[in-house]
């Protein structure tokens, strides 16, 4: 049996594509603002079988967010559907069904009712609809979780804009254009946490 999950850790199951970049950053900023520790499959180093490491990562997190808003085929010449996200959601559901007190999962979508067509087996699951905007992500995070200290959505959006501003320097530093890169992801989390603490210290939600 794996050790108990970290109560503040959230596994983020999102598409790693350029179009999703702003929403990805909004998830990181929003989760850090709410006092969570985001985790992503891309933070897993190479080596052993990747799937086993992803399962371990899911098991180490108390919550997971599965964003199924990008169900379109990839834009590469040999377009293929993306199965990683549904695969990771399936693994998570199995784990949560076996140990409901250890894990809670959420499905997020950009359009209402589409989930009924894309994954009808999830009928009865109420997805969080973010409308494909960073503001929508931040709003829905506040709808999903509550803490003693809750920053306002505009305040979170302000920090999101700052993290976006810092991102270019991080990408340059690591010689990449990929914000999902392991090092960049970790730095995005770290700087989001610094900003979140600053917001918390600066007083009540504005």
């Amino acid at each position, binding site marked *: 049996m794996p050790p108990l999950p970290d109560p503040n850790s959230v596994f983020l199951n999102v598409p790693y594509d350029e179009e999703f970049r702003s929403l990805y950053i909004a998830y990181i900023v929003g989760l850090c603002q*709410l*006092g969570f*520790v985001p*985790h992503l499959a891309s933070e897993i180093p190479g080596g052993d079988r990747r799937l086993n490491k992803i399962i371990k990562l899911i098991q180490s997190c108390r919550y997971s967010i599965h964003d199924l808003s990008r169900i379109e085929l990839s834009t590469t010449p040999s377009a293929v559907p993306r199965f990683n996200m549904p695969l990771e959601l399936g693994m998570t559901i199995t784990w949560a069904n076996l140990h409901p007190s250890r894990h809670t999962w959420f499905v997020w979508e950009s359009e209402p009712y589409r989930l009924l067509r894309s994954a009808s087996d999830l009928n009865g699951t*109420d997805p969080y609809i973010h409308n494909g905007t960073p503001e929508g992500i931040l709003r829905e995070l506040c709808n*999903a979780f509550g*803490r003693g200290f809750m920053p306002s959505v505009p305040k979170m959006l302000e920090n999101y804009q700052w993290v976006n501003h810092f991102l270019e320097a991080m990408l340059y530093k690591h010689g990449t254009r990929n914000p999902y890169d392991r090092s960049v992801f*970790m730095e995005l*989390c770290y700087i989001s946490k610094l900003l979140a603490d600053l917001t918390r210290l600066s007083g009540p939600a504005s």
Partner: protein
Amino acid sequence: MRKPIHLTFPPPTLEEFEKHYRISKARKKELLAMVEEFKATLSNQDETPVDLIEPEKRRKSASAA
């Protein structure tokens, strides 16, 4: 109407948070410096980079001027 999950445990401290990610001490200092710069900018709103000011705020400040 679904209710949010109310979290009763405290958020992690920076030290607890750091344990989850591998970032060198030197790089942490650099990132902290970026945030310090952010703080300084906040204390002097005139220096806020234009691309970070929401259009609505920009309109308001322009009309006030």
